[in-house]
């Protein structure tokens, strides 16, 4: 029943072949075809710009006050592309292979190969738009290396790559707005999909300033609304990041793919107390130079500097001598959790490990002393020089750490702990990025397609822009070519009226409860359940308990939530209530998905499925599929399995020892 529509033919010809044969829409017809885009991150902004350039009539929606605020902006490290500018053996195939392997063999070969193919075009496009990537003295682009790869293929703009890429896409989008091809709706949130005769024909959106509901028609709707990491309450996502758009689509028939696949990033600033509202990432690049350790003694309360070298346990270097501190994210995260759970954690909360730069500072200092010809430098002088080098490399991250924690990371080791960062799962889409509802597409983090069970660093930006700039402009034409005879449907059509009524009924219900507990409090409780029972490690019993607890929480929410203010006004609490209600439902599905997937793979670690040394154990014989969940009424889902066939990249056990 699930048709992924992967084109036939050899892997490296699929996309070329598809582009050569897909249907086209002539320019005159494009002007009459309306496309709605929800979300303005890398995927949404790039899709809006690209489709506007093609001549479609585009409407773009974001809940923030400007498209430029979308959370893609916070990506630090970089963007991968198979350019092979470093002449170090990179190629489209290698990028494809690394991505499939990094995803622990749970992604589609066809999609991933296409991603690798267009990756090079992304860099060209971004440079042409004026994205100021880092450069060498010769004026050519610079690259850095990232986890999970052996080549240097990551393009970057200091620690603000996401920001620069998003500004590039935003500028392209604003240009289309100026030309009149795109209409921009800021501070608007999509709250429902409108379906007519089985096809997606528009959305119901709420103007967050006036609180009024609006109906918008579109021949197709693109959801570029990002991931759902905030289901855990604490994550590196923005406060407003939510699953609502995707969830409404899911409830209207779009299958949800692999919802339990969550990436926990190992290097985040640890929680400091109950007041914590979000977590902040410290770039993966820090693991190039920092050494991770905990005391050898349980419950050691000495300051880091008072613990002598031989009483420190550099557990990553001990367990994974081949990769050491540079093991992939999922492995590093689990190892940190294991140490803290065993009682070796540091800091007041004991839920943290040290990321120590002392060795790097000394090493860089020695090199620097040699460079300036100061061969008999004292240790003090060496450390001073070393700190300068480290400052140049990571200065902005160190500053950020100091602002948040009040500790100077040049003097004391950073305390870090894993945190929810990215969700590989998302709306199930076919090769054309269409969900199981005709005319409804999902791009970027909102879909499930390219990262399998674990995403490699610097690949999220690549996927968002690939989908928006280079994939959707082709694949949407293949659908819209058959829609040229569909006239714009007036929004007084019964389907619009009914969809709007559903939304307003729900909002009225939320406002009428007037219970005693705030939305925030429910969100925190949901997050706690999810983190403890569907977080870094999951087991059958915990997941079953979690499902019951979430169902209970849902009942409580709908009978005891307190939403202040009015409907028809600027009311952030109401916006939040709408989102948290959807997170609660999603949480249940995530647990259900984690429960059925009895293997461990990538970011999904089932305690029942591990090797003797405690490593993740995949079960290809039984679980080499995409779990696509069909909504079937309150707390009911049907599972569809899309078998994964690996013709080129044959699955093997990952080992980092």
């Amino acid at each position, binding site marked *: 029943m699930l048709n992924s529509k992967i084109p036939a033919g050899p892997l490296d010809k699929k996309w070329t072949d598809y582009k050569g044969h897909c249907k086209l829409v002539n320019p005159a017809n494009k002007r009459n075809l309306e496309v709605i885009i929800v979300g303005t991150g890398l995927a949404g902004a790039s899709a809006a710009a690209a489709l506007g350039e093609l001549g479609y009539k585009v409407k773009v929606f974001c809940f923030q006050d400007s498209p430029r605020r979308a959370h893609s902006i916070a990506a630090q490290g970089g963007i991968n592309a198979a350019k092979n500018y470093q002449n170090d053996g990179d190629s489209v195939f290698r990028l494809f292979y690394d991505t499939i392997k990094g995803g622990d063999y749970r992604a589609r070969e066809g999609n991933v190969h296409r991603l690798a193919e267009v990756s090079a075009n992304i860099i060209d496009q971004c440079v*042409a738009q004026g994205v100021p990537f880092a450069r060498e003295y010769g004026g050519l682009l610079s690259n850095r290396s990232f986890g999970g790869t052996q080549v240097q293929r990551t393009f970057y703009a200091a620690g603000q790559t996401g920001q620069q890429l998003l500004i590039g896409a935003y500028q392209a989008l604003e240009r289309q707005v100026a030309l009149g091809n795109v209409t921009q709706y800021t501070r608007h949130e999509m709250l429902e999909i409108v379906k007519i005769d089985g096809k997606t024909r528009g959305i119901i959106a709420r103007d967050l*300033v006036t609180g009024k509901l609006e109906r918008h028609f579109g021949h197709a709707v693109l959801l570029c609304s990002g991931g759902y990491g905030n289901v855990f309450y604490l994550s590196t996502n923005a406060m407003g990041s939510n699953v609502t758009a995707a969830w409404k689509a899911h409830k209207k028939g779009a299958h949800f793919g692999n919802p339990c696949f969550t990436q926990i990033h190992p290097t985040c600033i640890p929680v400091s107390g109950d007041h914590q509202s979000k977590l902040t990432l410290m770039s993966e690049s820090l693991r190039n130079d920092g050494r991770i350790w905990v005391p050898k003694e349980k419950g050691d309360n000495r300051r880091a500097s008072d613990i002598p070298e031989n009483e420190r346990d550099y557990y990553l270097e001990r367990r994974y001598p081949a990769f050491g501190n540079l093991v992939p994210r999922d492995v590093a995260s689990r190892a940190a959790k294991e140490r803290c759970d065993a009682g070796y954690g540091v800091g007041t909360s004991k839920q943290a490990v040290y990321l120590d730069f002392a060795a790097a500072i000394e090493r860089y200092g020695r090199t620097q002393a040699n460079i300036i010809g100061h061969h008999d430098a004292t240790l003090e002088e060496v450390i001073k020089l070393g700190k300068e080098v480290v400052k140049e490399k990571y200065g902005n991250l160190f500053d950020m750490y100091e602002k948040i924690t009040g500790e100077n990371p040049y003097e004391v080791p950073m305390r870090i702990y894993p945190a929810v960062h990215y969700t590989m799962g998302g709306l199930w889409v076919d090769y054309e990025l269409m969900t199981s509802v005709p005319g409804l597409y999902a791009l970027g983090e909102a879909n499930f397609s390219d990262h399998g069970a674990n995403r490699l660093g610097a690949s999220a930006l690549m996927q968002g822009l690939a989908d928006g700039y280079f994939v959707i402009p082709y694949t949407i034409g293949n659908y819209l070519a058959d829609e040229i005879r569909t006239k714009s449907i007036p929004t007084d059509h019964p389907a619009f009226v009914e969809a709007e009524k559903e939304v307003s009924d729900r909002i009225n219900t939320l406002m009428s409860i007037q219970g005693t507990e705030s939305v925030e409090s429910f969100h925190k409780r949901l997050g706690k359940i999810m983190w403890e029972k569907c977080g870094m490690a999951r087991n059958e019993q915990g997941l079953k308990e979690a499902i019951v607890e979430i169902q209970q929480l849902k009942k409580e929410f709908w009978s005891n939530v307190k939403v202040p203010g009015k409907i028809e006004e600027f009311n952030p609490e109401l916006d939040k209530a709408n989102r948290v209600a959807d997170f609660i439902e999603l949480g249940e599905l995530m647990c259900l998905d984690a429960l059925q997937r009895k293997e461990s793979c990538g970011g999904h670690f089932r305690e029942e499925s591990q090797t003797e040394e405690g490593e993740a154990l995949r079960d290809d014989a039984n679980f080499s599929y995409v779990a696509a969940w069909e909504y079937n009424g309150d707390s009911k889902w049907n599972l569809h399995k899309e078998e994964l066939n690996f013709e080129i990249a044959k699955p093997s056990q990952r080992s980092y020892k």
Partner: protein
Amino acid sequence: MNLTLKVWRQKNSSDKGHFETYQVKDISSEMSFLEMFDVLNEQLIKEGKEPIAFDHDCREGICGMCSMYINGRPHGPWHANTTCQLHMRAYKDGDTIVVEPWRANAFPVIKDLVVDRNAFDRIVQAGGFISVNTGNAVDANALPIEKHKADESFAAAACIGCGACVAACKNSSAMLFMSAKVSHLALLPQGDPERKNRVLNMVAQMDKENFGSCTFTQACEAVCPKEIKVTNISRLNGEYLNAAFTEQ
């Protein structure tokens, strides 16, 4: 610590607005400024009052959404910082903190501390881009760019569009914001073909949006969370005059 907060409350854009005083107790020095507001809002909801509306999103200093004018300074007392990254260590027990929205006629208040900054989008629409359609690009390395120019361009492009420059300027001028965009694009060869029209159109749009003019007090640079330099404004002026006198 216990603090007294004087916060601007305004129901909507047509309301006159007023200050209200709140007491917050047991604030931890490890909290961020916005987390302190979260605590206050929870307290208000419990008391059946309306929580304070304020803009925020990423809470890691990059999205540019947060915008509070705290005790006379946009984004509060710390240097090169955003409101969301300000932490309560900056205050001591018993302090009184006055919080106002960005004030500029070009940034009308929507509610409480939330203002409308869409004027920035419209300034970018006037020319803050490079006109290159998707798929038209040549190979990225076909056009080498001097490293120091690329770095300077990046430093200008680091602007997060928060509007602190406007909030701190006695003239409510958007020159630092606009000059960052003009510099970012004028420093790159890709931006060259449109540089004249870009600067003329963007300045015209800024004037239309009701921002003031620049009198170089440099207050904007002092409060900019991304340390955008006022030399960008000089560059914009140079670009403008060059365009004004040589454009056909």
